[in-house]
């Protein structure tokens, strides 16, 4: 019958609306369900996973020594030309000329954090850091030289 169908339609419609309203009222009254993180305030407690790909850094030990041989594997692996390795020739103790790293130029502004350079590195000299706040006032600040001034290659790394 038309009237019965009409009334049924109205009531089933109202019921479906009431179910939705019940759900939003539940969240309105249960504030413990809130999942918002207060980002700039929680900097101290913010734990990013160790694998998070923030930027490429070069590892230096306490003697200011790194493990980069300047082999340019990372430079070749990089899809964007982010890394530029400048090498120099050192005179080793036995008098031979030896190729060594002069400058590890890293363009953060070109980097897509694809991790290919880290995988390509044969001596694990570079790794991904967990920093992610990269905003700067001038673009030139994003071009970084990763090896610290005065640093040398660690003994025994070939």
């Amino acid at each position, binding site marked *: 019958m038309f009237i019965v169908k009409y009334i049924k339609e*109205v009531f089933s419609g109202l019921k479906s*609306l009431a179910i939705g309203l019940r*759900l*939003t009222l539940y*969240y309105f009254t249960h504030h413990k*369900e*809130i999942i*918002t993180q*207060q980002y700039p305030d929680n900097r101290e407690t913010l734990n990013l996973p160790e694998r998070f790909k923030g930027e490429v850094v070069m590892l230096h030990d306490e003697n200011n020594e790194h493990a980069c041989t300047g082999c340019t594997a990372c430079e070749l692996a990089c899809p964007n030309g982010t890394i530029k390795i400048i090498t120099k020739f050192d005179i080793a103790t036995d008098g031979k000329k030896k190729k060594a790293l002069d400058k590890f130029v890293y363009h953060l502004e070109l980097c897509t954090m694809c991790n290919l350079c880290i995988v390509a590195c044969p001596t694990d000299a570079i790794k991904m850091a967990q920093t992610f706040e990269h905003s700067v006032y001038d673009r030139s600040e994003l071009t970084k030289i990763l090896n610290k001034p005065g640093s040398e290659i660690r003994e025994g790394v070939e």
Partner: protein
Amino acid sequence: MWSFSNISKFIDNWLRATFNPIWTMVIEMVIAGVCVIGLFAILGLVLVIMERKVSAWMQIRLGPNRVGPKGMLQSLADTVKLLVKEGMTPAGADKFLFNLAPFIAMMVAMLLMAPIAFAKDFQMWDLNIGVLYVSAVSSIMVISILIAGWASNNKYSLMGAMRSGAQIVSYELSAGLSILSIVVLSGSLNLNDIIQSQADGWWIFKGHIPVIIAFIIFIIAVTAETNRAPFDLAEAESELTAGFHTEYSGMKFALFFLAEYVNVFIVCAIGATLFLGGWMPFHIGHWQGFNHVMDYIPSSIWFFGKTFFLIFLIMWFRWTFPRLRIDQLLNLEWRYLLPISMFNILLVTLMAILGWHF
């Protein structure tokens, strides 16, 4: 007791004693105007922060929490931002009408404040056709939206305005009919008389199921009339970017924004007056002790409490439901709400004649 009616009476007596009647009238009008503008500002600030908090909590968010204690001054900061923004008039727009529209929206909202009883014996204009006045003046709102949409010289704005026109004209009917059911029961168009008729119980309790149906229809209809989601087709963010106020910016936009919230407040105040007894405290039959306790709560708190409850209802709808399509919106009115409210008003009339209410 400090109540609004005592304060207003004291001011009135003092003015009458000090000045001649004409000056008294002028000064009282100025005071009323300042009070209304002040109320507008406070309402705008309170309702915006309320909406943002309600929506945030329903959406498992925190909401504004930076400006002021617990973010309570956020809307003040927003107002300052809107004040210093440039109010642009697009090229090709009808400059006069474009700038006029937000003021019409504001004026309508201000006019609607006049007959509302905020507390016991505290009313700007005790009009004997208060209900008629409210439903008549609130219809002018659509003119400002139509002007804004047409004068913007923007297709989105025009579509939003046209949608709004169709929507408000339709929903006036069922809103009017559900208001009429209370007029039939109380036998008066005067808002004060309607409140007095609820001294022994609010109409929503006295009037059985027909009044509850009328109340539901009233809430749906006023949600549509104030262009709030799920009936926000005039703005329809995902379809028409911002509808009729797409081209407005700065304070002109803020006036529309404020007018929307004040309109929500007013229709909720009317709903509270008609169905929930306005400033009448909550009384249960013969529980004298309970009724006395309820009487101690000031009447203004009763009024604002009921109004804000209805505002919360409307906000709750907004943050739960998807938007209707334009043909479904009109379908809902002409196929469901109007026949039901017509049938309903017959029932209410029968009830009133036979005296079947409490």
